[in-house]
């Protein structure tokens, strides 16, 4: 690739930079650096590889390139041909096919078989018939922009990077907010990747329950990021340092619980740590959602607040230090001059931080994707499948469906069982949790039974170490059978299973091979044509007669 040349693509591959320097999603890969997996599925904005060219020093480009290539290109003729095109600013990258337990697991489901192919909207722009196609990369023509980084975004990134490089005391704490679908998580991925060019670790506090980055949805967590994020969240599910299972994909049912959870996660972070922290927030910027943001900025020692917006109107007020002084929070209130406040202020001067405004300009901004794989419920399903793919072994054998795996077992007297999102009668509890996704949690209290299973009368927010599928319940022997990728050394400590409103992807149940007829919880006879057969349907933007023919049209 010549300097500034780009490769925007769909598919997946492993990239190695053999010569020169390239950049993906804000992360730069130098020659000789290790290989990285790239994922560009149809569910998200396509990835773009950009050649940066080598840094300034003079080198004998051709001979060096030729030497490097010797290991990879055995045919002297083709090596010579390639070397001929090398200039001092060229980059040579090696793309290898990428095949992991994750990709194998995903492609075992019929509706995901085309996940790594271009979506319909891009079919006219695909460049087929290139040698890359064979290894799983489909280049897109230049009319597909890929990720567009706006000027304001670039400025914000450099401000933050400079701050982290030492412009401020202590570490940078960067809170990012903005309305749903404005590109918060994309911005955060670029920000983390850019930071990783300068530092080996970045801390991440998850505050977006619906679009989580490292965990299944419905979780709040504190993670240390060491590897660049070169794909959408479902491709980098990792075990966080600390996690709380909130059990819902939005926070409005329990605002206090949401704030308390985030505060408690923050307290888990060693205060001496000198690495930058990124805080992601819900895309809820109105009413109570906005008040929660005010609280978070007051509770956490933020140094930078990044506001993302699109179009001409900002979607909510700018949370500048000035604005914050008089803003009403959900748990906090604007300062009033009392003796108490004077007392506290003598310890902590009023909050100051840098407020940055980023204008999002990528295609489809603020629109919920409607194409296949792009709706938010599909993203949540992918997150869960990404998590459950960790149950597959690393060897490249065939995919093993969940039900074929050997489960763990635990007496139902030794672990407590609870439901987070609704009230279920204890005697009917097993009907709710059987074959469901459960959070594996650690209660501080000891769990003891006076006979029979232990049922939590009210579920609480407690530390969660991961998730499992309650594969079955042996009522006669009093055993739960559980499938989980959680490490056994951690599983030992689990004494509570929590059911939340995050359901198992339906394909996990409907696509169990080997069963012709009856499978529990699966039917082909349910008719959605009957009135009332569907879920509660929330109408967004229903027009009342009086608004017709006005600006809504």
């Amino acid at each position, binding site marked *: 690739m010549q300097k500034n040349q780009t490769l925007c693509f769909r598919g997946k591959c492993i990239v190695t930079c053999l010569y020169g320097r390239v950049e993906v999603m804000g992360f730069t890969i130098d020659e000789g650096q290790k290989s990285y997996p790239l994922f560009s599925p149809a569910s998200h904005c396509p990835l773009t590889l950009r050649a940066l060219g080598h840094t300034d020093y003079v080198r004998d480009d051709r001979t060096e390139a030729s030497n490097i290539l010797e290991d990879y290109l055995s045919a002297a003729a083709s090596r010579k041909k390639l070397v001929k095109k090398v200039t001092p600013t060229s980059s040579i990258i090696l793309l290898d096919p990428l095949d992991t337990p994750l990709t194998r697991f995903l492609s075992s489901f019929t509706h995901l078989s085309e996940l790594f192919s271009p979506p319909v909207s891009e079919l006219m722009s695909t460049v087929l018939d*290139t040698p890359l196609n*064979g290894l799983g990369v489909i280049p897109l023509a230049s009319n597909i922009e890929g990720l567009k980084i706006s000027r304001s975004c670039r400025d914000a990134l450099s401000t933050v990077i400079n701050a982290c490089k030492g412009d401020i005391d202590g570490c940078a704490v960067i809170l990012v907010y903005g309305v749903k679908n404005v590109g918060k998580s994309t911005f955060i991925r670029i920000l983390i990747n850019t930071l990783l060019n300068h530092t080996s670790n970045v801390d991440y506090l998850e505050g977006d329950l619906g679009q989580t980055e490292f965990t299944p949805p419905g979780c709040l967590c504190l993670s240390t990021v060491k590897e660049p994020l070169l794909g959408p969240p479902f491709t980098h599910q990792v075990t966080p340092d600390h996690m709380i299972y909130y059990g819902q994909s939005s926070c409005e049912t329990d605002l206090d619980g949401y704030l308390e959870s985030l*505060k408690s996660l923050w307290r888990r972070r060693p205060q001496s740590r000198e690495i930058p922290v990124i805080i992601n927030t819900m895309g809820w910027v109105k009413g109570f959602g906005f008040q929660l943001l005010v*609280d978070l900025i*007051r509770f956490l020692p933020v140094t930078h607040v990044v506001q993302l917006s699109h179009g001409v109107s900002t979607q909510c007020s700018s949370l500048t230090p000035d604005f914050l002084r008089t803003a009403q*929070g959900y*748990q*906090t*209130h604007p300062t009033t001059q009392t003796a108490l406040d004077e007392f*506290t*202020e003598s310890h902590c001067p*009023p*909050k100051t931080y840098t407020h940055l405004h980023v204008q999002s300009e990528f295609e489809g901004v603020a629109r919920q994707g409607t194409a296949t794989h792009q*709706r938010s419920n599909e993203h949540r399903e992918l997150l869960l499948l990404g998590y459950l793919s960790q149950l597959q*072994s690393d060897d490249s*054998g065939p995919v093993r469906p969940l*039900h074929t795996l*050997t*489960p*763990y*077992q*635990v007496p139902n007297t030794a*672990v407590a069982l609870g439901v987070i999102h609704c009230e*279920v*009668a204890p005697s*009917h509890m*097993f*009907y709710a949790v059987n074959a469901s996704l459960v959070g594996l949690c650690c209660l*501080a209290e000891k769990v*003891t039974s*006076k006979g029979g299973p*232990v*049922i939590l009368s009210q579920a609480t927010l407690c*530390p969660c170490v991961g998730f499992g599928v309650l594969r*079955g*319940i042996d009522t006669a022997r009093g055993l739960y059978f559980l499938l989980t990728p959680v490490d*056994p050394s951690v599983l*030992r*400590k*689990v004494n509570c299973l929590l059911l939340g*409103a*995050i*359901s198992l992807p339906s394909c996990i149940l*409907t696509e169990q091979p*080997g069963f012709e007829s009856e*499978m529990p919880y*699966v*039917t*082909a*006879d*349910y*008719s*959605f*044509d*009957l*009135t*009332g057969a*569907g*879920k*509660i349907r929330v109408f967004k933007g229903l027009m009342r007669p009086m608004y017709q023919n006005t600006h809504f049209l």
Partner: protein
Amino acid sequence: SAMKKSSSEKRRHVVAWVNKAEWDQVLDYLYSKDPALQRFALQRVSAWRGRYAHNTPVAVDCTADLVRCQVLDRSGQLNGDDLVLLYGAALVRFVNLITERQQGRKARPLRRLAGKLNIPEWVVDLRHDFTHKKLPTLKWCRKGCKVVLEWLQQEYWSRQLGGGADEDWESDSDGEEEDAELKRQESNLLSRQREMEAFKATRDILISYESERYQSLDGPQEDRALAPLADMSWLLGEIKQLSLDSSDLLVDVLLEDGFLVPTVEQLETLGCDPFETPGSSEPRVPQPVLRFWLPLLKMLNSPSFIHLLLEKLFVELKVATAEQTDLRVFYLSAWASEVLLCNSNKFEFRFERKTQKKARMKDRIFMNRIQLRWQQLLSACLDAPCGSTPHLLQLILDDMEHPLPQDTQQKLLQLCSIYTQTPAVEFSLPRDQKHQPIYTLESLHEKRRQQLRHSGERSESSGDLQRMDVLTEKAKVLRGSPWQVCSDKVLWKNFPLGKVPGQSDDPSSLMVETYSAMTVCEQPVEMESSRGQNAPGVPGPARAAEGLIWNQSDVNRLKCGLKLF
């Protein structure tokens, strides 16, 4: 031809009940009039809500809410005013939620929507009274509840699980479904009719072409294949126009039996032996058949038409292979092969004599190389595996503008010959690779048997053993905790998720008879209590700089942390 797929397999959906028996039980109990049974059913519906999260069917939710009102009413624990409020909430929710799906983009009056659904008008009025007027009397509430429950039973419960079409929870279809559905059906019918007419017209033209050609066969030998006869030019013009208007249709008809795929009678008329050819792995179209169609094909040879023809040839080939219609398989692959050969620039032709070349060119559909979408053809070809696939695959691979890496080509061809179980194909490979064996299923079996004998393993494959090791390792780590790796000798693959060995299909099998309730102090999350300086209840160092020092939940936490000796 039999192109339509039978849609016999209905889509599977995830529901909250383990099986039909559980559904039937809940339905029975809900409508039993026995408060104890109704309570049981309500509790089960609460478990269903737990499973469904936010996807509980509206009808189930509404039924449960209304039955709850009846149960509380009959319990005699609440007075009339209490009950009116309860009934009110359940009835308002019913009318609003059940009509929600009928709403289009514009809000429409509830009365009209409810009327469409056969909900009595006075039920809608009752709702209106609850929300905007004086509260209705208990008597009207009871009556409303009874009528709505009957409506739900009739419209939802008794019709459900008896079959029906499918629409997903997730799919956000628009309102005005009925109208749209009617219109859709109408326009479908119309377009199908038009399609049929066009199809027939195309067929007729091609049949005219055929009869013209048969007539010319009786003419002097020389004319057979060469310049189209004068009286055919009009016909060819027609066909050309057709190909511009609807090339799809034209190709479809061409690939019907009796056109590019000749019938036995047609072959006999052309002097070919219909039973000689099939089965060949490198099929070619017999010269008489080729020449029969050449005038037409030569006129249609635009790149887009050729590409379409190739694609459809492969699609049809797939169908024909599945149906094992040998003659069809042969001719479809022969035509594909013929077209691909026209495109190839094999250098063996470079040294041929002029007359040879002329003879060869005479029988080609087109002369100049066409840029095809090779990647798509490659997939289409691999999608239609049959005896001649390795040959066709080779032709495509050889002809690609950007050829795949040699070893990928080789692997593809090998895989392909294994899959189709054809004898070894000649690959255009470097000499040293040429002697590598072509794997067949048998040879792989044999190789594996040998390997197993060598490593001394008997029953279990190495993968299984490896997995056993992992499980033993896990079991070791878990020792001393209540958790274990399940060591029962169970073939888990025989048990779908949610089912364990010995579990009965009785819907009561998961009831919890005795249980221990555990109450956890409603405390904000405290992680493992490893941090000494952070005793529960003491605010962390990152305390808010502004606003209240302790909010309500902090105070709760403090209270929780207090220990009184």
